[in-house]
């Protein structure tokens, strides 16, 4: 384990990221001392399209919020040792680049980031790098790059990724960005590196939605996947729950109790406008998008009980899907749009069932235990995660739909609301830490764990957004 001694976390305060894993005590102390006290951030839009969207959101509420901090509480094996050399000229950008890239890769649990320090002579993407030397420093991968003024307040960012043992370049990309797009660009570079080295698409440039309860106030927030740039979509003095992203990432459906009862809204992030799409007599809840974004499966009590209905995303064309004397709720379309998985207590206790989206017979999916709820399908449709009660403890479990084998992924007691990352590799969920709601994430094999929390607030109802549009 000589590698551990070589390895340093080079995290800086503005990242707001805690890495707890195999690092030296010295680096940990340094980092914690620099951890931001307030966590308050200003609005830093990420892409051109998003900037418009976020500006609208800020107009709605115009309020800065404490940022999520992320802590890795477990690490996977077979991590790829990677060195991210500070990009030449990156100090021109307030957030830098290499720190953000490094934190992204470390957070995935699939990389071990090696401390490089300033290089003499400095390296950039054009340098003829002595890869044999890097091999001696135990790096299997190396990222070098630079930031160059492009005029008009713009910058060109270029980088190159090397496979050190094979002594070859794995390619690179050039971006022209504004200073405000630095973090987003760093996430895209991390996505490039992640995909080249693991074969899986990266999710660092995605966003997450979650609900913060602070005193009597409920806030639906949207942040970058690393917790940065939190933006408020809506604030209410009544509960907000069950946010779910439209497949194209432009809208969120959620349940708000502002009318003293649950009503399903669809909220456009670009304009901040929203529409009640299910506001029938009784309760309206549990929105689940169809893969084409045109329909929502919802749970309505308008005909008595709690039953599943399908409604168009503009609120028209409601039609009933299930007919039982039981509670049928938490509908989720399968990624191919053919099935709707849902929770029902038609057999006594709540279990997961499925029904064809066009209607038909209902099939039971879970059989182990007496309480299985909140089904979510992996993006490839092969895996089902859900919340299972085991000896009074609520935990996230996974089922391989082909073999029906199940595995408990988390070890909390009040774990709920699981949500897959769009690459299916991580699952975000809500849990409890010292009586306070926090978000956590686990790899889909259960090996890597993260915890995300906002100081002095209750965080719940996470929903991981889709890949960005371009």
């Amino acid at each position, binding site marked *: 384990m000589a590698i551990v001694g070589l390895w340093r976390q080079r995290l800086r305060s503005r990242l707001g990221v805690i890495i707890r894993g195999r690092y030296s005590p010295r680096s940990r102390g340094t980092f914690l001392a620099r951890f931001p006290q307030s966590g308050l951030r200003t609005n830093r839009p990420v892409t051109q399209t998003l900037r418009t969207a976020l500006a609208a959101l800020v107009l709605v509420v115009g309020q800065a919020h404490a940022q999520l901090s992320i802590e890795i509480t477990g690490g996977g094996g077979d991590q790829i040792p990677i060195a991210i050399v500070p990009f030449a000229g990156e100090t021109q950008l307030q957030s830098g680049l290499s720190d953000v890239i490094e934190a992204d890769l470390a957070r995935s649990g699939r990389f071990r980031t090696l401390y490089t320090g300033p290089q003499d002579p400095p390296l950039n993407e054009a340098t003829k790098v002595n890869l044999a030397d890097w091999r001696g420093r135990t790096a299997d991968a190396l990222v070098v790059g630079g930031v160059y003024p492009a005029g008009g307040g713009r910058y060109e960012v270029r980088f190159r990724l090397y496979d050190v043992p094979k002594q070859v370049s794995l390619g690179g990309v050039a971006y022209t960005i504004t200073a405000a797009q630095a973090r987003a660009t760093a996430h895209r570079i991390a996505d490039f590196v992640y995909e080249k080295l693991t074969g899986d698409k990266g999710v660092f440039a995605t966003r997450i939605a979650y609900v913060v309860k602070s005193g009597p106030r409920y806030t639906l927030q949207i942040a970058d996947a690393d917790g940065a740039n939190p933006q408020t979509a809506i604030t209410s003095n009544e509960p907000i729950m069950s946010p779910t992203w439209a497949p194209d990432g432009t809208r969120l459906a959620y349940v708000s109790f502002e009318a003293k*009862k649950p009503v399903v809204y669809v909220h456009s992030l670009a304009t901040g406008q929203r529409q009640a799409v299910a506001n029938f007599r009784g309760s309206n809840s549990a929105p689940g998008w169809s893969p084409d974004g045109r329909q929502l499966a919802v749970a309505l*009590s308008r005909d008595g009980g709690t039953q599943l209905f399908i409604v168009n995303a503009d609120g028209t064309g409601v039609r009933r899907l299930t007919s039982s004397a039981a*509670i049928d709720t938490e509908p989720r379309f399968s990624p191919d749009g053919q099935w709707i998985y849902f*929770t029902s207590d038609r057999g006594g206790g*709540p279990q997961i069932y499925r029904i064809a989206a066009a209607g038909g017979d209902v099939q039971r999916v879970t059989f182990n235990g007496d309480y299985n709820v909140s089904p979510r399908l992996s993006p490839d449709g092969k895996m089902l995660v859900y919340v299972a009660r085991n000896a009074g403890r609520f935990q996230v479990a996974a089922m391989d739909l082909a073999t029906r084998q199940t595995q408990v992924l988390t070890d909390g007691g009040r774990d709920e609301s699981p949500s897959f990352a769009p690459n299916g590799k991580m699952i975000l969920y809500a849990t409890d830490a010292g009586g306070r709601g926090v978000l956590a994430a686990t790899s889909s094999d259960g090996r890597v764990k993260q915890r995300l929390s906002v100081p002095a607030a209750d965080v719940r109802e996470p929903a991981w957004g889709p890949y960005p549009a371009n």
Partner: protein
Amino acid sequence: MKKLLLAATMTAVLAACQSTPETQEPAGVEDRAPKATPGPTTTPVPPGGVPGTAITDPSKDPRLKDPASTLSKRSVYFEFDSDAIKVEYVPVVEAHAAFLRQYKNAKMLIQGNADERGSREYNLGLGQRRSDAIKKRLVLLGATESQVESVSLGEEKPVCAEHDEACWAKNRRGDMLYGGEY
């Protein structure tokens, strides 16, 4: 003279209100109210007042806030994983059914609640089952379907925040609210 007459009328009406049949508390307080006294009519009060007129706005009926009246009791508590209305709450539901019969223009929202354990959406379903159970009983007792809307707040609006059975029992609840009260 007209004013005096009106005052007398109102006093009589109020007295009638208070002597409307009340169902007993489980503790067994003696009920001295005469049975089957018709409640106030809903005839509008003409200018100047006419004997025999009464309260038309149900929310103005003082019994709703009178601690001595069963109508001031609005909550029905449930056992774990149950929507059965326990015997001790039957008189409360009966009193509100009588009130809804009396005031055909009264509207009620029943908010069902669940304790915090488990899925928020499934708990919304459990709360709905409880509010539906109260509504069903009210309608059986003569309230009209259109007067009562049953909804659920699930585990989202707990009255008690501790993580123990004493607290959970308080949160497994249905609350009956009249128009203007929510």
